[in-house]
């Protein structure tokens, strides 16, 4: 069951260039930290997918083991765990996040 969840998470992570595990949806984030993460991704103007962990208790718990990270949101770029909202903010402000997206060859959002 747990292994199953981990496999399911890995599959989802690998299926997206940029993926955010969050509480709520991009249009209706259910937590300030998730809201901040979405704002950053929108500012960067990249295509991203999102998973609402509130819709799936298995993933909500499983994602914490997957990355050994206790909180949500969690950002993944090209299958790699980048960090939570604090790291995202820090990297966004320093320009590192834009650089990382560029290096990873992430698709820009269509205007």
């Amino acid at each position, binding site marked *: 069951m747990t292994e199953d969840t981990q496999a399911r998470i890995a599959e989802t992570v690998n299926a997206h260039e940029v993926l955010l595990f969050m509480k709520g949806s991009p249009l209706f984030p259910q937590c300030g930290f998730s809201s901040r993460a979405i704002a950053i991704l929108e500012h960067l103007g990249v295509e991203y997918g999102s998973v609402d962990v509130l819709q799936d208790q298995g993933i909500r718990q499983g994602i*914490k083991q997957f990355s050994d990270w*206790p*909180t949500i949101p969690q950002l993944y770029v090209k299958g790699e765990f980048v960090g939570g909202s604090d790291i995202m903010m820090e990297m966004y402000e320093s320009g590192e996040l834009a650089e990382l997206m560029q290096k990873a060859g992430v698709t820009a959002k269509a205007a």
Partner: protein
Amino acid sequence: MAMAADEIVVLIRSGIPDADVEITDLAGDGDHYAARVVSESFRGVSRVRQHQRVYEALGGRMGGVLHALQLTTAVPPTE
């Protein structure tokens, strides 16, 4: 549920003894904190790993009792 700022400092220092910890109570409600943790032991360590070390020191309270802890980590400036 909430945690006292002092308690957070003690826990972080128990895991990272040389850490310089600065806590700000963001909302004044003892529940929304910002922590800045500076430690020489972070040098050469990835940001994710630095945060993981703080979370380890907090012993599973992060995401539970401690819902809202904004975390910044850094290495001390070289003289």
